[in-house]
């Protein structure tokens, strides 16, 4: 049976958003809750605006920067694997929440994959918001018990002699995959390396690939 509940809300296109579109029930609820809490002085309206800016500033390019630095600088990689959060902060990536970050290194023998089986915990400070598929049942349910099959659905084949480790995130512990540096990238600069690193590679569902551009 497939899970065709309303988790699939994104499947049908949203109507164009215009200023005069009638807000839905839950949108009205969001506005009402927020305004009531601001009236009670539990927080300021400016804090919501500021947090929206923070959310907008978080994209996978931050995580890519961390990965590229780790590939270039072995001492940095060691610090990153020791404490993900402080190593990210070293690069100016602030953590706006109380989460800790554990960075999992892919090697020739081990491939890592991250999931949140209970909900949608994700390394938001370094990757931004998770894609919908990460929050939906098929990925959450299956990643922990048939990761190879899941990875095949992403087009990723992991040989049988490579161990797959799946890490299940919690409210306070988040994970980030440090992918394998692709072959042939020895001459690339740190910025060029960062450009190769994608969000999905840092979730662990695909490898980082590099094809040398034809001259």
């Amino acid at each position, binding site marked *: 049976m*497939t*899970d065709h*509940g*309303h*988790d*699939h*809300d*994104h*499947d049908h296109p*949203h109507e164009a*958003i215009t200023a005069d579109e009638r*807000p839905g029930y*839950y*949108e*009205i*609820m*969001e*506005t*009402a*809750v*927020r*305004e*009531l*809490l601001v009236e*009670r002085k*539990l*927080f300021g309206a400016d*804090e*919501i*605006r500021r*947090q*929206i800016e923070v*959310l907008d500033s978080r994209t996978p390019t931050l995580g890519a920067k961390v990965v590229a630095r780790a590939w270039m600088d072995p001492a940095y990689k060691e610090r990153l694997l020791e404490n993900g959060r402080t190593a990210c902060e070293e690069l100016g990536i602030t953590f*706006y*929440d*109380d989460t800790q970050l554990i960075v999992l290194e892919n090697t020739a023998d081990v491939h890592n994959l991250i*999931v949140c*089986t*209970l*909900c*949608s*915990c994700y390394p938001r400070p370094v990757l931004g*918001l998770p*894609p*919908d*598929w990460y929050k*939906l*049942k*098929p*990925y*959450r*349910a*299956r*990643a*922990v*018990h048939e990761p190879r099959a*899941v990875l095949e*659905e992403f087009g990723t084949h992991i040989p049988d002699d490579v161990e797959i480790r799946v890490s299940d995130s919690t*409210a*306070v512990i988040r994970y980030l995959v440090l992918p394998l540096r692709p072959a042939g990238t020895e001459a690339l600069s740190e910025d060029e390396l960062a450009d190769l690193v994608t969000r999905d590679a840092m979730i662990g569902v695909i490898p980082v690939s590099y094809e040398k551009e034809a001259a």
Partner: protein
Amino acid sequence: MGSELLVKKLPNDIGGESAGKIERVEHELLPWEKRCHALADVLDFHKIINTEEKRRGVEALGSEMVGKLTYYERWIAAFANILFQKGILTPGELAVKMEEVERRWLASQQSAS
């Protein structure tokens, strides 16, 4: 399957279940969804509702609501319930405020036309 599984495995606890093929869907958040996300973060910063309380609040909506509401609809419904439980808001206050928000939108439509 015995009913004890309902006790041992709450609705969110789906790791290890069988499920369909992964469809690689994504969408840009709607403006209200992004506001809802920012609200969640601010509630967490102020220790009003933390991430785990939010998750349990969603779970407490029950499997029917979890199945029928979208991701951020579940969040705001959970926030409202948690705020009622904590005595920070009452259902009546929220209902009055929601009417006010809707009336304000209707008024803005009239003045615009």
